[in-house]
């Protein structure tokens, strides 16, 4: 992590959450709209939806927002938790749990949701010089 001296302490409002899509990093939202334990949904350029979460340790996660069991785009509205050390979100509809890091459904091993690589970055500045890795 290298930071220019004048931006040594970037305010959290300056931090953006980015996810890696097929064609590069996509800025989804400000970091400070993500409160620990609660997700938000973001719209992707292709019309898809992603659910973003932040753990109480500051780690960020991004998974497909669509609940594969019902088809509704609601995973961002589920409750998060820790199960045997793994972070998960429970669907608010029928309560199936999904591992936030791998997308695997903890209650049905045949089911998995897409996950995205996610990081924070200071806004409008080249990621190469002012990147702050999540976690």
């Amino acid at each position, binding site marked *: 992590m290298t930071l220019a001296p004048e931006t040594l302490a970037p305010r959290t409002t300056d931090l953006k959450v980015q996810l890696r899509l097929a064609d590069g990093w996509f*800025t*989804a*939202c400000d970091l400070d*709209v993500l*409160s*620990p*334990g*609660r997700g*938000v*949904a*973001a*719209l992707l350029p292709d*019309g*898809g*939806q992603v659910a*973003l979460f932040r*753990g*109480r340790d500051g780690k960020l996660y991004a998974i497909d927002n*669509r609940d*594969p*069991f*019902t*088809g*509704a*785009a*609601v995973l961002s*509205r*589920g*409750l*998060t*938790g*820790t*199960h045997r*050390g793994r*972070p998960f979100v*429970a669907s*608010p*509809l029928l*309560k199936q*749990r999904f591992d936030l890091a791998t997308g695997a459904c903890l209650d049905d091993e045949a089911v998995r949701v897409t996950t995205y690589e996610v990081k924070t970055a200071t806004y409008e500045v080249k990621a190469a010089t002012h990147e702050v890795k999540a976690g």
Partner: protein
Amino acid sequence: MTTDTPTIVLVGHGMVGQRFLEALAERGLTGTHRVVVLCEEPRPAYDRVRLTSYFSGKTPEDLSVTDLALLDAHGVELHVGDPAVSVDREARKVTARSGLVVGYDVLVLATGSYPFVPPVPGKDAEGCFVYRTIEDLLAIEEYARTRASTGAVVGGGLLGLEAAGALQGLGLTSHIVEFAPRLMPVQVDEGGGAALLRTIEGMGLSVHTGVGTQEIVTGDDGAVTGMKLSDGSELATDLVVFSAGVRPRDQLARDCGLAVGERGGITVDERCRTVTDPHVFAIGECALAADGRVYGLVAPGYEQAETAAATIAGDEGSFTGADLSTKLKLLGVDVASFGDAHGTAEDCLDVVYSDSRAGLYKKLVVGRDGTLLGGILVGDAEAYGTLRAFTGSVPPVSPESLVLPAGAGAPAQLGPAALPDDAVVCSCHNVTKGAIRGAVTEHSCTTVPEVKKCTRAGTGCGSCVKVLGQLVTAELEASGVEVDKGLCGCFAQTREELYEIVLALRITSFRDLLDRHGREGARGGEGCEVCKPAVGSIIASLAPSIGASGYVLDGEQAALQDTNDHFLANLQRNGSYSVVPRIPGGEIAPEKLIVIGEIARDFGLYTKITGGQRIDMFGARVEQLPVIWARLVDAGFESGHAYGKSLRTVKSCVGQTWCRYGVQDSVRMAIDLELRYRGLRSPHKLKSAVSGCARECAEAQSKDFGVIATASGWNLYVGGNGGATPRHADLLAQDLSDAELVRLIDRFLMFYIRTADRLERTSTWLERLPGGLDHVRDVVVHDSLGICGELESLMSAHVAHYRDEWAETINDPEKLARFVSFVNAPDTPDPVVGFVPERDQLKPDLPLLDIGLRRPSEDGRRDDRRDGLHGGLHGDLQDDLRDDLRDDLLEGSTRR
């Protein structure tokens, strides 16, 4: 139907008959025999012992003890309303009233008994009843309602007191006339009778003992106006119930030449076989047992049923006599007698404790060697279960200490652990302590309901359930079975324990609680979907008392809430929400109805009237919620908390104001209660209702707390439930004033919130709680734990700090920002949320799961239709759709 299969014919389908059928099934006899049942009453077997509970809310269906599906599965042919009229023993055929003739190999008579009506003049007059069947009860109820204000019961025994209680429950001025010098002469002695008398008179019933009924006086219309008593006095009454004992119904047996006793009863041997005919058995109240007695209690009847079934199966089994122990709650007074209650054994001694002021009377009969022989308990039968089980043995502590109340002298707490294994704990089903221990150790039962199911203990009269609970706990501890009662993988404590921790340490943060009190491995983690909302609810319930914010979306609390609480609306299957404004008591002015209609129309919401007397608007997207609330709040509405584990509605009937039957203003009371308890977070949702009279149109007895008006106040029922496991609520207290009612509900709700498990409705809580309803009554009515002051102050803190969550949210820009479908496109609606027309409204257009997410570009109608609702609310396509719907409707109506 003719067949070579041997046939068993059962005549009579009462409790004992039903038990006999179950015993046949258990022994596999239903597989090898054709079983035909002839039943006189129009309904299958029901719980006659609890007949009176019909008046405190049980329906005839609740009283049923018959599992029709089970009978069906076993091929039992049950003919109700078709009694046997004759038996041809020669040809081995029974003829029923309908003309049905059934041949038998084995005939079992379980015809029960009939009420004895003393041969006094006027006994058949209009207004005279007996108290035996549900039909009798319905007739008494009807007559009491339309033609009587005073009622008299002839007979002060067990059934007589039950009947008198029923009359009082129907609002009649009630008298009891007993020939013997005391009440319940068979069960209790003079001292017990005196204690009982004082208590019952204290309830407003008039008791006349030592007098006989000489004549029923009638008016010109032939209806009862009074009765002449043997002391020369006359008692004015509009209704008479004869409850002066029962006699065996043995006419059918007499007619076919079976031997009967001098004072009635079909004479049987120890196998319950009639002494006259080896093909015929008699069981229950119609049988004169081998010991020369006719047993009028259900437990010996069950034993006879088992004996008869065993004999038919060729198994061992005999009935030589039975214990006449009983424990009853008559008119709310505990009365129990067991063993040699009257001390008839030679050389026996009495130990008596009597407290007239408290209406307590306890007597133990003890042999010279210290053997407990029997006893009588009036006013407090708490120790019955343990004492009865010790009967016949020398208790490990002195008998005096067993009857003294706690606090007097050195009270002995004699736990059931001291019982020998062969002690009978459940006398209804003859289940020993050993069998109960076996259920835990061999059948891996860990809870009282499991043990009940496994052993049947506690499923009869229920008087042993308390002992059962103690035994199960003791056995689990003894066998080292680790029962993890922890809330979830994060907390080893129960919800109740967490509640106490939060309250005592004033913990307002989930993280704090988890990091300090969570399981080792869970500390520092996120918690889980089980404990987060549970702790969120505890903090919200206690908010004003522990210094937390009462607003569930504040700070960390927001992250703990289930999605419904988080969005203050109910998530529906397509990701949209439904909105339910509070309509207290179901009362709503036309202007407000119009506002709801307008909002639903403007936002294109599907509307439906709920079961709780309010209106649910479905299909709101998350970003529409604040706009909808703003309009509702503006019109004077507030959140209905349909999304919360909290008070939902207090339903009401229209009550005295309009209804010609109403006796109190049920609507006002419902509104008062709903406004008092609105927003109260609890372990599960809370439903309530207030009915303006005993007709119960508001269905209060299916609610967590239900209120029914009486002529002099309110009756409070608790622990009712509808849904998948319906349960009628239990009567907690009667004839309460407005203030008494509110105070009791305050205490009840706070006690529930304090002690219930997560997602445990009041009905299951009441069943699980050791001591059940009696314990709850002790705590909230009699303040046995001394916590009522605290419960009340917790509730008043809640009431004082209530704020409408919707109003609070729409006035908070930071919270409002959360109400968007997409954090990076706040104006874009969720394209997955779509609708199609159904009838004249909308329904979710659900995505096909195997196709995956449908994009707006593939289906323009869906997102365009509700486009711009923030602004104009009247997108063209929205209008088009509405026009389509109207056309559809018109077309439909012309077709109709």
